[in-house]
């Protein structure tokens, strides 16, 4: 194995000290957590915020005449301002709190899709999508009679430019959608280019940002997309997420869910809708979770999204090299540097469940399976892979532990 180079702008020791769970051993060993792409761990700052909300500031929002109601509302709306800044939104009215990216994408599929996509129209998605950004569009196509087309992948897991070319004469394209970063392969998609392609055809671009927003600076204006969905639980936050959408589009859309909070006046026969963004926030929202999502965004901003991205890019390059040097390991997806912090691999013909089980015995947490991307797996003739994903609290020691764990897998199964 060649000597791997690794430099990082992050103070890893200080960051790890922020995450209480990383101090707890698993099976008597140091926890090597390499599954942040599924859900990230939480820093003390976020945990403290949740406790603080419930201990000092909790009441329902937008209703209370009393002091606590006003404080809770101020903190909840303050979190919206933080998230607007986090995404560089034009306006706070464009930031809708949802449960997670899945709900945000469904909001678009229902409220935008069922209003503006009609029979005979075309929807364009990619075959690398997470099921959460594939199934809503399949369902939309089935219900509206629109056709659904897929951009294909190259053998190294990038979007195939030729497949975009092949669809260039497609008519009535109303909606284009893609992941910013692939959760299975770490592929980084060129969102501004897809936005141009969509806008040239009068279509909107919907971006699944679940794997990007936690790891890199996202500027929705620079990306030039029309909708962007993220999950708070993957970015050091709790179970709350954000759907960002262009104000004129959100304005033109009917509500998704109806009920309390999203109304202005209700008569027995009819109702008028609340202003943006509350039009899309029916019912009591996840108050403490949304406030803590704001705290998570501030935590990441404090460290610096650019620094986090640089750290992960260096680490995934290191990891790719290390795995490349292990006999019997096959890796999938683009080679670094064109790759976000996700390693996807198999060890000989050992089933990924068995790989993950052996790694678990060493205190190493990885994901094994199809990663909610069954069509992507079929594209590469796979049923499953083992996935190791890194975040700001991972270091080369985690990758080295993974490499040792893989040696144990090979030993156990005689490879």
């Amino acid at each position, binding site marked *: 194995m060649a000597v791997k180079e690794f430099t990082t702008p992050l103070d890893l020791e200080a960051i790890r000290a922020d995450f209480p769970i990383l101090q707890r051993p698993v099976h008597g060993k140091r926890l090597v957590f390499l599954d942040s792409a599924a859900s990230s761990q939480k820093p003390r700052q976020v945990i403290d915020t949740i406790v603080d909300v419930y201990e000092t500031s909790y009441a329902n929002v937008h209703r209370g005449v009393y002091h606590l109601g006003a404080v809770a509302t101020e903190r909840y709306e303050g979190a919206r301002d933080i998230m607007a800044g986090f995404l560089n939104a034009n306006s706070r009215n464009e930031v809708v709190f949802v449960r997670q990216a899945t709900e945000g994408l469904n909001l678009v599929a229902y409220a935008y899709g069922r209003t503006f996509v009609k029979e005979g129209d075309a929807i364009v998605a990619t075959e690398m999508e997470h099921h959460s950004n594939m199934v809503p569009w399949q369902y939309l196509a089935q219900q509206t009679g629109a056709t659904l087309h897929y951009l294909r992948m190259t053998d190294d897991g990038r979007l195939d430019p030729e497949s975009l070319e092949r669809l260039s004469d497609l008519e009535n394209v109303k909606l284009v959608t893609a992941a910013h970063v692939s959760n299975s392969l770490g592929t980084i998609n060129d969102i501004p280019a897809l936005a141009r392609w969509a806008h040239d055809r009068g279509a909107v671009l919907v971006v699944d940002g679940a794997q990007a927003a936690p790891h890199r600076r996202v500027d929705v204006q620079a990306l030039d997309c029309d909708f962007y969905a993220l999950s708070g639980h993957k970015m050091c936050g709790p179970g709350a997420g954000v759907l960002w959408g262009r104000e004129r589009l959100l304005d033109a859309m009917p509500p998704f869910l109806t009920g309390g909070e999203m109304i202005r006046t209700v008569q027995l026969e009819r109702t008028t809708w609340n202003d943006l963004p509350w039009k899309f926030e029916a019912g009591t929202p996840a108050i403490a979770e949304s406030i803590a999502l704001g705290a998570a965004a501030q935590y990441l901003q404090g460290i610096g999204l650019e620094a986090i991205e640089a750290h992960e890019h260096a680490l995934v390059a290191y990891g790719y090299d290390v795995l490349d040097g292990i006999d019997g390991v096959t890796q999938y997806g683009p080679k670094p540097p064109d790759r976000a912090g996700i390693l996807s691999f198999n060890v000989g013909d050992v*089933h*990924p*469940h068995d790989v993950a*089980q*052996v790694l678990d*015995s060493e205190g190493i947490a990885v994901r094994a*399976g199809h990663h909610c991307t069954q069509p992507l797996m079929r594209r590469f003739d796979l049923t*499953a892979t083992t996935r190791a994903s890194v975040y700001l609290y991972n270091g080369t020691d985690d990758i080295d532990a993974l490499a040792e764990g893989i040696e144990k897998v090979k030993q156990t*199964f*005689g490879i």
Partner: protein
Amino acid sequence: MMDDFYRENILDHYKNPRNHGHLDHPTATAEGVNPLCGDELAVELEVDDGVVTDIRYNGRGCAISQAAASMLSDVVKGKRVEDLAGIGKEDVLEELGIPLTPIRLKCAMLSVGVLKVALSELTGDPLPDEWSDPSSGIEWKSA
């Protein structure tokens, strides 16, 4: 506990599966798929005068699903069909001899599940709820 997860006998059954392959003239067959992890398993039974005279498993998947099938095949072979009515999860767990998390339990139960489907086809008895429940996440298919 984790260190002896892949005990020698499990690895032995995985690497050298007993009764693996196909029968020339099976009396009953069934197959199952766990879409979650892509495990696939099929069972073929040869029954003569109420006795399972031969059995074959074939498929692909993780060590637990394949080893469990191999172990179970030894248990089933030579038994009377009526004596197999009560065979179930516990028998597989006893053979494996290790504790399993719910996710891995599904891997282990694929083998006994396809056996139950094949037996129900053979006897005409309905598949017990425990095995026909779609929440098991496993898709069964009988021939």
